[in-house]
């Protein structure tokens, strides 16, 4: 399980971007919970990794932020910018390629199926 976390780590930004693409806008805590829910607890995004990733993407102009007042406190929502949408597409392509290549390496017999 722990080793698996290392494998996910490299794709953290792509995962966040993909989620934002699907959900429109999300806040930090929501992202951690959503990932946990989708992967049934397999993947756990730590706070120490999530926020630096979000902040870096925000600084790079891939994410835009929006504030809202919820339950008496202010909530910071993240959403993809135009360049963020383009970046998500290209990162998803890269990730899909990677997965395909890994599958071929791990299980060469799969090739026969194509």
């Amino acid at each position, binding site marked *: 399980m722990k080793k698996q976390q290392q494998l996910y780590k490299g794709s953290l930004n792509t995962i966040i971007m993909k989620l934002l693409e699907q959900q429109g806008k999300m*806040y*930090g*805590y*929501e992202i951690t*919970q959503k990932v946990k829910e989708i992967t049934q607890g397999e993947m756990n995004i*730590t*706070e*120490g990794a999530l*926020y*630096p990733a979000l*902040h*870096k993407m*925000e*600084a*790079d*102009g891939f994410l835009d*932020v*929006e*504030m809202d*007042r*919820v*339950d*008496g*406190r*202010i*909530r*910071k929502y993240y959403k993809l910018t135009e360049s963020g949408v383009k970046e998500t597409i290209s990162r998803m392509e890269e990730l899909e390629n990677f997965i395909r290549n890994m599958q071929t390496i791990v299980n060469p017999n799969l090739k026969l199926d194509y």
Partner: protein
Amino acid sequence: MELSAEQIEQLFDFTKKHFVEYYDVQVELVDHLANAIEDQWKENPNILFEDALQTEFKKFGIFGFTGLVEQKQVALQNHYWRLIKKELIDFFSIPKIIFSAALFYILFQIFANPNEWMVANDYVILISIVAITVAVFVYQKISFKTPKKWLIQNTANYLYTLPISLLIYFRFGFTTSTLNPSLFKVLFSTTSSTLYILFLIVLYSKIIPLLKNEIIQTEKRFQFA
């Protein structure tokens, strides 16, 4: 069970106590902690607020919130450095290179043929440049002040000190101390002065307006709060 207004205040104090001085970062952390504590209460309503808070804080790792703030500062600084680099490179491509070349030529003429007054007053010139740079820095710092402290202001302050830091770095390049300087000294002075002036142009014409706009936007986003 939801957190009370008092507990939200306690969370703000908690982030301040853990060295988060910027309001925008405090807001994000407070909301995160509040959500997490409320989720803990859904599982077990008997957990004490303080205990739930400590459990959540531990999840931020050994550096706590400080690592997070530092990484955000680095991300912003890198972003603006990339912009500066891009704008500077622009000055070495057509059409702006004509301006850069003209500036280089004029400065070369000044440094290659210094008059007696320049040589006699080299320290006066240097001190004047330093004084003006510091005065501009102080003015900008004051004009950047807002009622609440935003993280972007840290980046703004960092970029504002750059003219002073670079001045210290290039201090031998801006004046001429002899009537017959060596070619090496002339070239060094011309190159460093040209780069410094180009940097100032980029900083004051592009980067600082961008930063000011970002601060205004940040304030606007929080206006309803």
